[in-house]
């Protein structure tokens, strides 16, 4: 026998809270007088719980999907990211121009004078490292934040290669003082850090936020400050 309860097909949407006010009132009126529908609603709630538990237990989205998708974007119509950041064109893009300005400002004027004074005091043949302080930026959802101390022998020689590495692997976001901030897809993190480390010395690495997101990213904050000769 088949008979149709008036609100049977609305119950799943009552349970997920998407009915209109009128539909919700209709369902609630039925629920108040129909034990079968009330039981059915409990079953629907249980089904939702079961399906959500199953979904939660499934493997997360592989981070490689984001990486692969980002790589595909470069070959899709529109401005090509790789082209924007390669060759001689990166400073023509507004965001890159801003960063270039940071570099100029950061190492210009008094900063350059201070650096030149510092440089003049260096001992030929000695190795110097420059400290990259931790960022104080708050971590955001689905991201982990990592502050890296990047040691380099010379800001002039190190920052452009570092910029090139970031340009290939990351999206430069903003600066704070002498801090250059770049977002690095997690899948590229190790390679990027390795490349950056090859420029000098990574003195510390700290996860501000655990990598719990499916496509968690690293915010790499870089600033170059002369440190003690060592």
């Amino acid at each position: 026998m088949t008979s149709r309860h008036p609100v049977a097909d609305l119950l799943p949407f009552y349970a997920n809270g998407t009915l209109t006010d009128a539909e919700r009132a209709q369902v609630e009126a039925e629920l108040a007088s129909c034990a079968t529908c009330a039981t059915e609603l409990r079953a629907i709630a249980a089904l939702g719980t079961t399906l959500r538990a199953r979904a939660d237990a499934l493997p997360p989205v592989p981070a490689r999907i984001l990486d692969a998708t980002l790589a595909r974007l470069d070959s899709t119509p529109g401005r090509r990211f790789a082209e924007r950041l390669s060759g001689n064109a990166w400073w023509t893009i507004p965001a890159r121009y801003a960063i270039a300005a940071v570099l100029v400002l950061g190492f210009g004027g008094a900063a350059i004078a201070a650096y030149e004074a510092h440089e003049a005091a260096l001992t030929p043949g000695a190795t110097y490292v420059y400290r990259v302080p931790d960022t104080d930026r708050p971590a955001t959802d689905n991201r982990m934040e990592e502050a890296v101390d990047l040691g380099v022998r010379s800001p002039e020689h190190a920052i452009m290669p570092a910029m090139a590495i970031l340009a290939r692997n990351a999206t430069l976001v903003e600066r704070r003082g002498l801090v250059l901030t770049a977002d690095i897809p997690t899948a590229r993190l190790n390679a990027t850090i390795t490349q950056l480390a090859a420029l000098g010395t990574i003195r510390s690495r700290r996860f501000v936020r655990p990598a719990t997101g499916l496509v968690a990213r690293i915010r790499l904050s870089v600033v170059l400050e002369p440190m003690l000769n060592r």
Partner: protein
Amino acid sequence: MSEAEDRHLLERIARRDRLAFEAFFTTHGPGVHRFVRDLVRDEGLAEELTSDVMVDVWRSAGRYGGRSRVRTWVFGIAHHKAIDALRRRRLPTVPLDDALEIPSLLDGPDATAMHNADRAQLDAALRTLTPEHRAVLQLTYLEGFSQHEIAEVVGCPVATVKTRAFYAKQRLRDALAPARAS
């Protein structure tokens, strides 16, 4: 993420803002991946489809008309691609039940058994459903779409969505019944 935030991200994506794209992927990628994975039941294909959907977002963000929620728009793309992939693979399909009459509820659901069904039994039961039923189940129970939004995502009348939602639940319950009995 709110609808306003979604739309703002889309506007930035239309301007080729990769950071916005990554944020969008972080927000919607897991749901899209889960959705297409359950539809096509092939992990490799699901990864391809998730990427395809997001590349479509990148390409067509500027053409998003704003007539529906961003999530609805994205899941519509995902549904279309998943169903298209299933058709290309010529996977067996089951006739839809749109014309069937809604049956009685008098059989009495067993909420506890449904809740306690273990993962393997649930997976097996889900495999017995049509892609159309799995889609409606997921969009209703996991993604929290309204019946009207699901109609837009899957491209069918609202009445059909209601029918599918009802039968998907019934058939899942029926498929779990042998496990309950044993």
